[in-house]
């Protein structure tokens, strides 16, 4: 059996999750400080991928990064091509998972007691120290929840991924695209195996989160 889809899915979900983690926190932190109306607009734009059908996201990404589109041509000069490559999968997973991280992190930051950071400032602590050692630990639950949701969403991403990077065994195949491909070609046993693999990963992730939470 070819285990490539497992490895590819984990790498796409892992990398996009790391990207989304930092981007989500960055936007969540700065969005909270913006004037109300800008925040409202930004909120809509940043949350859109969550409510749009993934195929629509895939369509928009193709319009942007397609090999004949300006951005695609521009990136091609640096040898970066998102269409039909495994790291194109990182892009789609990141776009689709981003709103989950952004929204949960923002919720966590909004419930943070600002006086804690004010107290840190009057004690002479640097803003970076306050952010990483006081704000982040206080918002740990929300951040962790957002990360897990983003990872799960990235791992299960199908629609946008299949549009942008398609299904090429050994190159762009992920677990979800493989399940569909095998089922379509009447390989029900093969599809079943990958379904079980996916179930196993999801269960392990959720168990790990539960254990982390109980430890606190």
């Amino acid at each position, binding site marked *: 059996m070819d285990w490539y889809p497992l490895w590819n899915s984990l790498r796409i979900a892992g990398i996009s999750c790391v990207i989304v983690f930092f981007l989500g926190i960055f936007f969540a932190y700065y969005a909270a400080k913006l004037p109300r109306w800008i925040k409202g607009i930004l909120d809509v734009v940043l949350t859109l991928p969550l409510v749009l059908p993934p195929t629509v996201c895939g369509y928009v990404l193709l319009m942007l990064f397609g090999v004949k589109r300006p951005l695609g041509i521009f990136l091609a000069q640096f040898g970066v091509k998102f269409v039909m490559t495994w790291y194109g999968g990182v892009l789609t997973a990141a776009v689709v998972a981003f709103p989950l991280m952004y929204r949960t992190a923002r919720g966590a930051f909004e419930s943070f007691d600002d*006086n*804690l950071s004010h107290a840190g400032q*009057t004690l*002479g602590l640097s803003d970076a120290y306050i952010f990483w050692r006081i704000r982040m630990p206080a918002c740990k639950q929300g951040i962790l929840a957002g990360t897990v949701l983003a990872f799960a969403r990235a791992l299960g991403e199908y629609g946008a991924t299949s549009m942008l990077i398609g299904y090429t065994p050994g190159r762009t195949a992920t677990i979800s695209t493989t399940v569909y491909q095998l089922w379509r070609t009447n390989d029900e046993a093969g599809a079943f195996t990958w379904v079980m693999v996916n179930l196993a990963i999801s269960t392990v992730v959720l168990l790990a989160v539960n254990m982390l939470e109980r430890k606190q």
Partner: protein
Amino acid sequence: MGLTVNIKKKLGDFQLDVSFETGEGVLGLLGASGCGKSMTLKCIAGIVKPDAGRIVLHDRVLFDADAGICVPPQKRGVGYLFQDYALFPNMTVFQNILCGARDKDKAADYIARFDLIGKEKLYPAQLSGGQKQRVALARMLAAEPEVILLDEPFTALDNFLKARMERELMNVLEGFHGPAVFVSHDRNESYRLTDTIAVMENGAIVDISEKHALFRAPRTLAATLLTGCKNVTRLERLADGSYQATDWGIRLQAPVDDMQENATGAKPVYRYAGFRAHFLMPETQGVTATIGTAVEQKQLTDAGSCNRLTCEVLREVEDTFSVVIQFYQKGLNERTEYSLLTYETGKEDWERMKAQCAGRDIVLQIPPDALIWMES
């Protein structure tokens, strides 16, 4: 030397415009919630940036809008005690104090000084209210601030704990050499802990003076109400030189400085008057009151028909050690929000008074000295 604050800040419809100066000792900011007390502290600490003005601490400019100076909170040397103490929940007692101390030996020293030995490894959630305050105080003082700001530290506490923590704070304030600003909406608390009190209303200081003077003779209506005076009235000056207390429905004898030029050459015209609930004197059976000094009794006789209240009792509210009588002036037709008066006295005194009057109206006199006169 000391702290000089002169700032303006607009926030929506709210306008903060505060200026004061304080040296060593405790300045109280007394005001109802939303009057801008905490905002003032936040501006001094550098958490909120004023629109205009200047803040100077010991010849060091912390903020100057014209010169474009705004020292970040980290470099101001300001200690801030928050209402809920703002202890870092993810850090132990020791780590919290270390944030202020920056040095393990120093942190250990403060642990010992604030009676926290054995609690070093506990988290804030595991501490009692009193311990939390000690950690917050230790953390603040370990950073060696040049001025300390206290933002309603006792608001959420029950009375028993409050009294104990107040004593601890007094110890800290006595040992601190520098300006301190204490914000509160509680007049008793402010009176006990401060030396000078500034009364705030709608973002501005309406009265500032040494605390004894402030409570004896507040100069504005806002200050009078905030220092706990429950009986106030609007005034109208009458042709015979006395005043009509329009809300109470009686006449008041004019104070001795009425229409007299004061030090600044202005002639005061009084617009409000008030008296404290326990300063009334009973007048029974036409005989002069049995309470009060000879001088006070003489003043009462001089006052004649002025300053007399004939009680129409609404209700008697029994307190722990006293009784509060809520009443109107008898026969007052137009009742306003200030018409209901309160008189506080000992329970036995009140019973005796009622027995003496036996069916007749109870008459209370306001000693002229007890009246607070206000121009604004």
